[in-house]
């Protein structure tokens, strides 16, 4: 079972299990994200498959000890394919009462809770409205628990470095990590190395953190641990040999865009305005200047979109990025790019809405906005990535389509994909086939809206002698590119805009079935970051002999040519989405298939079990009805 301990058996000293889900939770000042990232790294090196889910608080730094200041990092790792961060927790590391309070409900019954009792003080209970000490009042009934005064032990372990109490306690996360490393038999060296680099300018801090890490590890080895805690082995997964790294969705998109631009032989101008969770893309790209990436932090999203459009007009690849509310602001500008038929990539890292909503939580509720969210008949291309690794490919594909079809492309990711990290086999980019853009250079017979057989206009960049031309948002004459208010011409241009985009369907792969048959009783159709839980849920059900298939869309618009036929081959279609039912609307309208939504809007990814039980329900109900 994903996130489960099924298959546990003893091997040597260590209990062997197939997979485990651990969550580190603590105050935002406790460094839980770093802890999680380090554990991920060590786990990847130990050749487990894995997936992660970082969950930040909305506040920058909420007051210490409050529930809304809790930061958490979850990792699911195993000896077999892992596709989600896991439903329920095997182990929760709770660095304070707030972390316990907000996370305990996710621990599976019988799971292990590790707490730093040094933080379990009356003052801290009050901050989170615990009426009594949860370690004593039965709150932990039904869970295993390990109660350690990590604060004190950490301070002792770093005493020699003469740090103050505050700085000393900052090493607590490393102490906890050391202990977990011991539990799962990880080599702490990767973190030792990393600490040396990170604190290169402050030897004392490096030493203290290393000491805490080692102390935590040693504590595991030497302390009398309750039998049920013990040491655990998650054997190596059958991972393809090669060079790996941890990849977040943000890095994936950044590197994919850069790669795409290089393959298109275009310099890239990225214009953005900070917004959670999209800002990180700007940050990563800002550090890639040597790869012909120019980044521009504009005064707002509108300016960012317009600067990207200006850059495309000037012959670069214009890219802009935001999340829902920011993309909303870009709407009018995107219309201009559609009307002038300029390449433009718009990355939308979706977050919870409406309005400011839940900015740090994930959601996939901008599909409507992407496909239909513009005034007038304004078709463009919409792609969605389903994981960090996938995002790399989809970003390249976005660039290819934008540059070769002279169109805006919206690339959808979400807060989950953006922040999650997964081990990624690093591809050899020299093997990718380039798709260089050919700019118009010949003045003979030129006008800016001359089209090829795919209805794509030629791209002439300022600076080219003899190709001076004017474009704009007013309707253009099909034959000359000049302004035209002619009724029939407007119809023709509307047709061209529609058909050019629809024609892209010829240039994308047919929709494949991820798992299961191409016909059958139930298709589960997903897009974006629901990939993991759908995939696992379908696998589980299929393992039980249920006739269910998984179809996952990368191309949201235009849709793959065969999708309609594919869907019609199933008795039932359900569409799990982290929104109130958006793709399902598109599919129903397109194909008149009675697809049904399975919707979750909580700011959290689906659990496998939620999708699994929906699948079982559907098949059972139908069976009963038949």
């Amino acid at each position, binding site marked *: 079972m994903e996130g489960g301990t099924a298959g546990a058996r003893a091997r040597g000293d260590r209990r062997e299990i197939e997979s485990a889900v651990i969550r580190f939770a603590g105050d935002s000042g406790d460094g839980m994200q770093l802890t999680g990232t380090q554990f991920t*790294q060590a786990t990847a*090196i130990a*050749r487990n498959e894995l997936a992660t889910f970082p969950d930040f608080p909305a506040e920058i730094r909420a007051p210490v000890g409050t529930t809304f200041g809790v930061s958490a990092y979850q990792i699911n790792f195993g000896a077999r394919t892992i596709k989600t961060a896991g439903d329920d927790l095997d182990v929760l590391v709770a660095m304070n009462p707030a972390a316990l309070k907000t996370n305990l409900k996710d621990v599976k019954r019988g799971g292990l809770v590790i707490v730093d009792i040094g933080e379990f003080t009356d003052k801290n209970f009050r901050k989170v409205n615990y009426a009594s000490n949860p370690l004593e009042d039965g709150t932990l009934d039904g869970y295993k628990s390990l109660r350690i005064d990590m604060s004190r032990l950490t301070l002792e372990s770093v005493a020699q470095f003469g740090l103050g109490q505050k700085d000393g306690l900052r090493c607590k996360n490393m102490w906890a990590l050391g202990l977990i490393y011991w539990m799962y038999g990880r080599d702490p060296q*990767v973190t030792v190395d*990393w600490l040396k680099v990170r604190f290169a300018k402050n030897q004392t801090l490096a030493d203290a953190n290393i000491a805490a890490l080692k102390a935590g590890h040693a504590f595991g080895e030497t302390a009398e641990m309750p039998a049920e805690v013990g040491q655990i082995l998650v054997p190596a997964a059958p991972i393809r*040999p*090669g*060079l*790996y*790294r*941890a990849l977040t969705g943000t890095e994936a998109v950044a*590197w994919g865009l*850069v790669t795409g631009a*290089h393959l298109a032989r275009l*310099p890239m*101008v990225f*214009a953005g305005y900070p917004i959670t969770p999209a800002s990180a893309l700007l940050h990563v790209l800002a550090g*890639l*200047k*040597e*790869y*012909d990436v*120019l980044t*521009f932090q504009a*005064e707002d999203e*509108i*300016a*960012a*979109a*317009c*600067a*990207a*459009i*200006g*850059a*495309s*007009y*000037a*012959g670069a690849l*214009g890219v802009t990025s935001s999340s829902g509310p920011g993309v909303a602001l870009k709407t009018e*500008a995107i219309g*201009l790019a559609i009307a*002038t038929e300029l390449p433009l990539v718009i990355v939308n890292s979706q977050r919870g809405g409406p309005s400011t909503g839940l900015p740090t939580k994930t959601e996939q509720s901008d599909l409507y906005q992407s496909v239909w969210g513009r005034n007038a008949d304004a078709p463009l291309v919409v792609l969605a990535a389903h994981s960090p690794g996938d995002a790399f490919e989809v970003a390249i594909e976005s660039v290819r389509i934008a540059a070769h079809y002279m169109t805006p492309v919206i690339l959808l990711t979400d807060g989950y994909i953006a922040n999650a990290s997964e081990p990624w086999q*690093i*591809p*050899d*980019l*020299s093997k990718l086939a380039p798709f260089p853009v050919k700019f118009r250079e010949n003045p003979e017979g030129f006008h800016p809206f001359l089209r090829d057989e795919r209805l794509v206009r030629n791209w002439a960049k*300022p*600076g080219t002698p003899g*190709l*001076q*031309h*004017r*474009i*704009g*948002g*007013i309707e253009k004459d099909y034959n000359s590119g*000049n*302004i035209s208010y002619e009724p029939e011409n407007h119809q023709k241009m509307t047709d061209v805009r529609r058909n050019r985009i629809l024609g892209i369907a010829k240039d994308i792969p047919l929709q494949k079935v991820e798992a299961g048959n191409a016909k059958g009783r139930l298709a589960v159709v997903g897009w974006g970051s629901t990939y993991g839980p759908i995939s696992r849920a379908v696998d589980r059900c299929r393992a039980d002999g249920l006739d269910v298939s998984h179809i996952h869309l990368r191309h949201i618009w235009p849709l793959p040519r065969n999708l309609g036929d594919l869907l019609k081959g199933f008795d039932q279609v359900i569409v799990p989405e982290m929104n109130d039912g958006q793709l399902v609307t598109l599919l129903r309208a397109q194909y008149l298939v009675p697809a049904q939504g399975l919707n979750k809007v909580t700011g959290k990814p689906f659990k496998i079990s939620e999708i699994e039980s929906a699948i079982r329900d559907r098949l059972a109900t139908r069976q009963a009805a038949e």
Partner: protein
Amino acid sequence: MNVQSPKKLLPKDYATDQDVRWCPGCGDYAILRGVQKALADMGADPANTVFVSGIGCAARFPYYVATYGFHTIHGRAPSVATGVKLANPNLTVFVVGGDGDGLSIGGNHTMHAIRRNIDINYLLFNNEIYGLTKGQYSPTSRLGTRSPSTPTGSIDPPVSALQFAMGANARFIARTIDRRQDHMPAIVARAAAHKGCSFVEIIQNCIVYNDGAFDSFAEKDVKDEQQLELVHGKPMLFGKAKNKGIRFNPKTMSLEIVTIGENGISAADIIVHDETNRMLAVMLCQLEPPNFPVPIGVIYCNPAPQPYETAVWAQIATAKEKLKGKPADLNAMLRKGATWTVAG
């Protein structure tokens, strides 16, 4: 800027074949003439020149200039132009827009283009009205303007284009007038030559919705008395007889009009225009009719060491130094940071 064209072009060579669609008598025609002459005078290379505009009557401008052109959306021309210039700093980029385009919906982009000091040349056609949408008052319309949206008169004090630009930290501001064909081309050329964002207000008569708004100073017969033509290093004299001048009154910290020969005033009392004096520029921007002649010419010009896009590209160049002349290796990008090998 890279504007040298191989053969000498004439103003008419900068005209397109498109029908000009402004109202007959519109001041925009004169501006088009003036700008085309400026382009010819500068020897601008049409292939390396781009006009970007927003929406409005003024914003139709690019269709009539035989360079590259982009007629974008309302208020966003400075942003689009920023993208053009960032992508290709070799282009000479003009922005053209009306007072609504540049100061109402587009005010923020105008402000940021100015403070960022990107090397674009903003020509703001100020007719103190929304022409294209049929005559509503604009943020530069005077108090009390009756318009379709203010039938009983406007009540919001206008913004001054040039004061606004100074507040945004402009390093080049100038003003000229549609009717001053003798004056406009040189000002436009100066703006284009300035490295960094240059902001030029061009007073423009909208014959349909705001006719005569500027007659009190723009018309030929009053111009000597009502225009203060500024020239760097020259005293601020005006009037038919060039006997009136501007003096600084340190008590009130303000400028005042004096007449040479009256009340003991001599030529030495008159301020000599110094384009580089920011304080003087701020004060000049505040001179308004009817109490003062309207300053025209280059009011302020004080280039920064480098415009924005130069600094942007310099950072890119610095980053590329790491590559030591080799092409960027994408494989290296993916392999930065921690990696591990899974053996076969």
